[in-house]
C-alpha cells in the first residue's frame, strides 16, 4: 500500500441502474385480439438490489422479464439495460447483451440434458468466445459457489433444487450482472425453494441486480423491494424499511 492510497480513499462508486423501464407498454396482437400485457410501467432496479415482482396470473410479470432481457420489444416506452436503451442496440449488440449481461432462471428446469453440469455452465461462456480453460475455471467457481460438486454428472443425476442451482450458476458466470428469475421455485418443494432463493438473495452483495418473479410471499420477502403488478400496471411497492441498503 502506498501513502496516496491511505490519504485518498477511493471515491464511493455511484449506484448504477441495472435496468430501467420508462413508461413501458406491451400489447400482443392487434384489433379485437389485442391483449395489453403491460400498460405503462416505470421501474428501476439498481445494481446490488433484489426486486420481487408479484401479481395475479396474466398481469404481465413474464412479459416484463422478456422485455428486460431484450427477448421482446415494448410497444411503447423505453427499456434501458446497463445504461443503454435496448431499442438503440443493433441486433448483434442485443445478442451480445443477452449473452454477457443478462442471466435467466426459469420455472422449468432447462439445462441441456446431454451436457454435464460443468459443460452447461461453460456453454454460454464459450459461445461468448472465452477460451475453454478460462470458461472451465469460471464455471467451476460459479458452481462451487452454489454448493455443488461432482460436476461431471448430467442434469438428470441432480435433484430439482440442484438443477436450479446449476441454472443460477449459469446465469451468474462471466460478466452477467442482471439476473432475471421467473418463478424459479415453481417446480421445487419449500426446502429446495428456500435454498434457491437464499442463493439468489446473496447475489446483490456481489453487485448483481436480481429481478425475481414469484407468487410466494415467503420467497418475495427476501427482496429489498416488492413490486405489485395488476393489469399491466404497478399498483404498489413494499420496501424493507431498515433505513437503507446493505
Amino acid at each position, binding site marked *: 500500500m502506498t501513502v496516496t492510497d491511505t490519504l485518498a480513499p477511493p471515491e464511493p462508486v455511484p449506484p448504477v441502474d441495472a435496468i430501467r423501464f420508462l413508461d413501458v407498454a406491451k400489447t400482443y396482437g392487434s384489433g379485437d385480439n389485442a391483449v395489453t400485457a403491460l400498460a405503462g410501467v416505470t421501474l428501476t432496479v439498481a445494481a446490488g438490489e433484489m426486486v420481487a415482482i*408479484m401479481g*395475479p*396470473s396474466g398481469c404481465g410479470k413474464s412479459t416484463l422479464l422478456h422485455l428486460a432481457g431484450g427477448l421482446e420489444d415494448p410497444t411503447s416506452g423505453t427499456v434501458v439495460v446497463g445504461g443503454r436503451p435496448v431499442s438503440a442496440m443493433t441486433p448483434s449488440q442485443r445478442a451480445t447483451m443477452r449473452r454477457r449481461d443478462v442471466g435467466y432462471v426459469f420455472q422449468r428446469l432447462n439445462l441441456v440434458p446431454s451436457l454435464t453440469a460443468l459443460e452447461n455452465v461453460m456453454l454460454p461462456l464459450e459461445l461468448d468466445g472465452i477460451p475453454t480453460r478460462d470458461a472451465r475455471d469460471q464455471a467451476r467457481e460459479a458452481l462451487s459457489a452454489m454448493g455443488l460438486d461432482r460436476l461431471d454428472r448430467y442434469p438428470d443425476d441432480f435433484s430439482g433444487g440442484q438443477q436450479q442451482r446449476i441454472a443460477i450458476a449459469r446465469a451468474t458466470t462471466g460478466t452477467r450482472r442482471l439476473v432475471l428469475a421467473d418463478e424459479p421455485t415453481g417446480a421445487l418443494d419449500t426446502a429446495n425453494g428456500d435454498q434457491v432463493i437464499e442463493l439468489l438473495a446473496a447475489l446483490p452483495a456481489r453487485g448483481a441486480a436480481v429481478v425475481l418473479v414469484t*407468487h410466494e*410471499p*415467503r420467497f*418475495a*420477502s*427476501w*427482496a429489498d423491494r*416488492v413490486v*405489485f403488478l*395488476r*393489469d399491466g400496471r404497478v*399498483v*404498489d*411497492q*413494499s*420496501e*424493507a*424499511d*431498515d433505513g437503507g441498503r446493505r
Partner: protein
Amino acid sequence: MAVREGLLALLDAGPRVGHQLKTGFEAATGGVWPLNVGQVYTTLDRLERDGLVATAEADGQRTYSITDAGTAALGAWWEAVGGDDPPPRDELMLKVLMALDRGPDHALAVVTAQRTALLALLQRRRRDQRGRATDPAVGGEALAAVLVDDALVLRAEADLRWLDQCEARVLQARR
C-alpha cells in the same frame, strides 16, 4: 385462552405463590401477554371462589394449588378446539368484506394496502433473521419467543395468500 386457564396450567405443575404465577405466565406466553399483579390476584380469587384453586398460608405467604375440579376444568380446556361455526370474526377478513360492499375498486385498493403492509412486515423479519447467525438451539423461554415469531410469519403468509385470492376473485367478478 383467558388468564384463568393460563394460571391453571401453571398450577398443574405444582403449588405456586402469586408473583411466581405472574412471571411464569409472562415467560410461558413468549412475551406477548404482560400481566399486572392485580389481575393475577383477582383471577386467583375467582378461581378459589369457583373451587378450582385452593390456598394455604405459611410464613405469611399464600400458596396456591390446583384442585381436582381445577384439573378437570383444565383438561376440558386442553381438549377444546376452536370451531368455525360461526366463522371467527377476523379483522382483516371483515375489512375486505366491508370494502367489497363499497365496490370492487375499493376492495382492490384495500387488498393492495393490506398486502403491501404485510409483505413489509415479512421483509423486516427476514432482514432480522439474516442479521442473526444460523438458528441457535433454543429451549424454554427462547423457544416460546421463536414460536411466537413463527406464528406471526406463517399467519402473515396465509393472510397474503388469502389477499391474493381476493384480488383474483374480485378481478374475475369485475370482468
